[in-house]
């Protein structure tokens, strides 16, 4: 049984049929990526998994439990954490306060303190800026903070929405290195990304989304060689 199983979900924005029966799964320990162009339904998929919107049909199970209609705020305690699109940090709170909010559902002050120092080990730059207001961090640092904050919830599945968005190429590399490192330490990752090349670089498997449907599913390496993917998403002629 896969860690996350998404079965035949249909989601709508009003009359617009945004997800047309999506089925995919994420296995324990994998990095799985959803790639696709603007409007393909990538963010919608993540919003549906995290219950920020509900599908009209279909089923989402995590570790065998049906989480389709589990309220968004119950998911962190169930083991699902998200790094939202555009980072979604609390820009007027300090770095530390952001991290504390990431551990909001937890009730073990000692464990939280331990995890906070762990995330400062993982992101030394955040340690330097622990009392700084998050809005004054650079884009890359904000992305680091958003990831660190999600990890504070001690998730077993990490959802990442467009982590490369708005970052300089050199920083994008750093962010993706970090994702890879977190994964090698045992974290399962579902990565939604427009930058298909980078995503397929670090992913184990990938799904290609097109107007709300999965049109291709394969190993990341195979997808990278697929001529159609190359032409459409990798910019290779």
């Amino acid at each position, binding site marked *: 049984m896969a860690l996350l199983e998404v079965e035949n979900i249909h989601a709508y924005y009003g009359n617009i049929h945004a997800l047309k029966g999506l089925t995919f799964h994420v296995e324990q320990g994998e990095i799985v990526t959803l790639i696709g162009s603007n409007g393909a339904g990538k963010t919608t998929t993540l919003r549906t998994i995290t219950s920020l919107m509900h599908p009209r049909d279909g089923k989402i199970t995590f570790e065998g439990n049906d989480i389709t209609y589990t309220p968004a705020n119950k998911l962190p305690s169930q083991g699902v954490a998200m790094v*939202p699109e555009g980072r979604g940090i609390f820009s007027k709170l300090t770095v530390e306060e952001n991290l504390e909010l990431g551990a909001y*559902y937890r009730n073990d002050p000692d464990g939280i303190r331990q995890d906070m120092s762990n995330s400062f080990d993982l992101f030394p730059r955040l340690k330097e800026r622990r009392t700084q207001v998050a809005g*004054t961090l650079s*884009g*890359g640092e904000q992305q680091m903070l958003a990831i660190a904050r999600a990890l504070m*919830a001690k998730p077993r599945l990490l959802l990442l929405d467009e982590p490369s968005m708005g*970052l300089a190429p050199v920083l994008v590399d750093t962010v993706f290195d970090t994702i890879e490192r977190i994964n090698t330490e045992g974290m399962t990752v579902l990565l939604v990304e427009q930058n298909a090349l980078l995503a397929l670089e670090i992913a184990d498997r990938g799904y290609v989304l097109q107007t709300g449907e999965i049109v291709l599913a394969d190993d990341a390496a195979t997808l990278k060689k697929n001529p159609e993917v190359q032409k459409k998403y990798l910019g290779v002629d």
Partner: protein
Amino acid sequence: MEKHRKPYWRTALQVGLVAGVVLLYLGTIGMLAAFQEREVIYEIVSLGQILIVFPSLVGGWMAARRVQAHGASPVVAIASSVLAGIAAAVPTLIMLVINANVENVRDVLVNINRDWVDIVTFGNRDDLLAGAVLLLVVLAVASAVGALLTLLPGKLRSALIFTSALVLLVGMFGETVRQILQQLLPRETLDSIYRRTSLRVGPAVIIFVLGFIGSYFWAYRKETASRSAPRAANVTPRSLTQRIIVFIVLAIVLLALPLIVGRALSDILVTVGLYVLMGLGLNIAIGLAGLLDLGYVTNYAVGAYICAVLTSTGTLGLTGGQMSFWVVIPIALVAAMITGFLLAMPVLKMRGDYLAIATLGFGEILGTLAISDWLRPVIGGAQGVLFIPKPNFFGTELVNPEQLYYIVLAACAITLFISIRLNNSRVGRRWMAIREDEDVAAAMGIDTARAKLLAFTISAATGGVAGAIFAAKVGTVFPNSFTVFVSINVLSLIILGGMGSNPGIVVGAIALVGMPELLREFSEYRWLIYGALLIFMMLNRPEGLIPSKVRQRELAAESPPESTPNPTSAAQPAIGD
């Protein structure tokens, strides 16, 4: 740069003309004439005279500042401001000429009359030319003084401004100051300071000198203090003992306040206190949780009507006046909380502006209900509820505002305590997250619906208490006391004081509710002054008078950080899929 900037004389003319139009406006609405009679310093300075020079003074200051910002030398700055002062006289001069040559100016502009001519020519009604020249000279000098102020060193300048304002205020609010001093000084001493309500020259000079020395010394100390501990000065938290001392002094002052200020001012204090109470409550919804609630008056009304109906000795009283005020307070509190909870339910999914409109609607519905015939048998419709007895404290009836003050003070203290505790708790953290980003807050595991319900409910509670005290204070409850203006006033005082800041609410309430009461002798002009002050405040200090820490950080966050090694820090395009 040098080529593209406006010539100095144009800047000066622009600023001067604006000041001139303001001066003319003050004349045409009759403010000059009305204020002429009010003497600040006996037989020497009247409020009208201050009003004449004030626009040019500010204009001169601004003109000098602007040209200096473009690199003008001090001499050029003063010259520009003199030009501005002359320009400031032009609109009034034109009106003088029109007035002298056209018959029926007064049919249209009722206040352009002999009195006005008298004021702007400094008594030279019969020799207009001399008067005009005098006006020109006075305004040019005032403007130059404004420019000179910009050239003074900072300490000296702020000391001068502060002291002038002090003398002006002591003179302007002569009646109030007299009332306060009455409790302390014998009548003869008072009469030697004030002639009726205007300051005498001697005391004015003494106040000026003392105030100047005091404020200069203060500025000097502050400067040396911050120099010896650069930057840390305003960050270092005060030590515990220091804080305890401040707390005790504050408590003593607050407790003694009604004894010091006397009855009339105590009455104002009670009103201010009620607004502080509501401000603290609404601040929980707006300042902490970011829920823009424009229907706060509903809670106030619920509290007032509950108190009225339960304690009234009139026909509408349910208990024939048997129920004690102290029993009613918790009932009003709970009733308001229930209303807050119920009204929050349907609007939980709304955000920002939509929430504001919806809550505004609730306020209107309640007002309509209060005045309706349907509820008339219960709450009296437009006739309201009468005969509400005063609170009884162990056998003594609390009739005077001095006594009621303590009830309000106690309620404020409790609310303040709760609000501070909440802000620093997990609940406060929850609200902070929701205020920033609801979706992300939910993704962090925060039950946003519950947190919002809680914020609305707690916020409503103090409104209910304030309403109950209000009803007991006034003795009658009418629907027209509960208009949308109450909500807007409470919201404004929060914004004026500084969103989310508790001391700010107190200052905001004093400025917004207390000041208009104190300005009462300036009759209809007080709302004009008040509006102008509000606009000025929001332009120059949008963070409020006493901004909260978070708010300060927000404003600091808007200016770029000092050390961002990363060139892409600002780039955050919002491209979604």
